[in-house]
């Protein structure tokens, strides 16, 4: 019981991060904090993919004499793409926050909502 529970510790971390990130996105009104939450949420998925690629007792996927078992490189390659996407999303989001700050003078979403409603 404990073994299987602890053996899957990386997946537990994934779930923990995912929920933490998701909670931050939903509960915070500060636009930057929201983006940080989003980033954590995405990172959890990166970890998930990396965990999926791990093969028990496997080494790095480099072909060499005497090595028969190595990790699956494909998820790692895939997640490289996803990381790039994540970086792009975060930077675009932050750029938007900068513009929002210029336009509204605040980065608190409830204040922005008030100003939107007043227009």
């Amino acid at each position, binding site marked *: 019981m404990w073994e299987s529970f602890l053996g899957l510790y990386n997946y537990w971390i994934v779930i923990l991060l995912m929920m933490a990130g*998701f909670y931050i*996105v939903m509960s915070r009104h500060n636009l930057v904090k929201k983006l940080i939450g989003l980033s954590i949420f995405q990172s959890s*998925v990166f970890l998930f993919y990396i965990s999926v690629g791990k093969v028990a007792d496997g080494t790095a996927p480099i072909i060499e004499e005497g090595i028969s078992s190595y990790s699956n490189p494909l998820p790692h390659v895939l997640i490289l793409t*996803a990381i790039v*996407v994540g970086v792009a999303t975060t930077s*675009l989001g932050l750029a938007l926050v900068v513009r929002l700050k210029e*336009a509204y003078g605040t980065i608190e979403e409830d204040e922005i909502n008030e100003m939107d409603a007043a227009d």
Partner: protein
Amino acid sequence: MADHLPILQVILPLIAAPLCLLVRHALACWLIATLVSWLCLAIAVLLLHQVLDGGTIRYQLGNWVAPWGIEYVVDRLNGFILVIVAAIGAVVAPYALRSIDSELPERQIGLFYVMYLLCLAGLLGITITGDAFNVFVFLEISSLSSYALISMGRHRKALHAAYQYLVMGTIGATFFLIGVGLLYMMTGTLNMADLADQLKPLAGSRIVLAAFGFIVVGMGLKLAVFPLHLWLPNAYAHAPSTVSVFLAGTATKVSLYVVLRFIFTVFGFEFSFVNQPLGPALLVLAIAGIVVCSLVAIYQDNVKRLLAWSSVAQIGYMLLGLSFATAIGLQAGLLHMFNHAIIKAGLFLAMGCVFLRLGSCRIEAIAGVGRQMPWTMMGFLLCGLSLIGVPPTAGFVSKWYLVLAALEKGWWPVAALIVLTSLLAVVYVWKVVEVAWFRDPPGTAGRIGEAPLAMLVPLWIMVGANLWFGLETSGNVDVARAAATALMGAVQ
């Protein structure tokens, strides 16, 4: 050359985008964007033609054999979607010249076309690819560029709308990514056709079920299924007019395609509709979406927002067709997807013309505009009739098939509901028409003229399409039927 059409479909706009970035000159960028959009339409039409004649096309990227390499697959379903997306693009591009010119500062215009081309490439890529992870990549290309496009709106609310969409869209895309990851964990493949084969013996697996949930909910966010639609009204309302047209006509349609592709081709009909209660779930969401969002649309005081709410309601009709889980229901849903693309594009095109002249789309601002811009508002009226579903317009045909599908199942109340909710559409369309035609313009307004020809022609192309596909329906109905039977037949 003809063998490489599938990759050209995506690579053309993808290469044109950085080219525009290098050129930066507004007019040159517009020329490139227009040319590329038209080429894309030509390619999409050729592809659909090939598919209808010779069956599914499979294109191995870089000659890497599937399921290891990435594969582009064009069958009847996505051939149809490709044409929708490319056609909207081809109509929007010429329209952008004047509309964008008036709504964006000079230095942003070149960048606008960069984003537009990226968005087009992303949407076409999502549609054409046969690889689950590739869908995610193109999804993010189109999403990131559309966040940027929306934020270009003139009012500061556009920034806020873009931010909200960014958060919601990223959550949706990440959900999708999780789902794909789970599927890969179970099967070791990302190729959709291969996935379908590998998943058959795994129907009882809980992980596959989780993957199904993540993918459907993730795409549901992008598709703006009620109640995951909250980002859409603001995004459509505050984006530049051209962007509203383009996104309204394409973005949700492509998301719906992904949902269809996964629940029919990848997971299979039996898994989605027999093992899981997807049909009833969709039915409830669709009906709630239609009723609630139509009612909300009635109370909007900005025409673009009104149209955006109506879009969410119309997505409900498409899902309704899907929820019947019959060939004719699916056909009706697909048909409505096509028809709604041309209806909503037409309506937003008309509003873009109004915005160009008035600088506002608020209800009180457009009073009496019908007399000053008769062609524009006549176009709006005709597309509006199509939205309601008045014959002989395109909107009637898809509603007809929807009702027929409901009757075939014996669901009388649903059929009645489709007819009754059309009355709600009468109310919100008429609200605009009445103000525009029968109310006197506000005293402060000066005399304004008709919109320029470069914007009227795209509008009237859409109006013509609405009338044409309301009368001569053999083309699109047959393709929708073929696509629907292919989807249903492949799994039964």
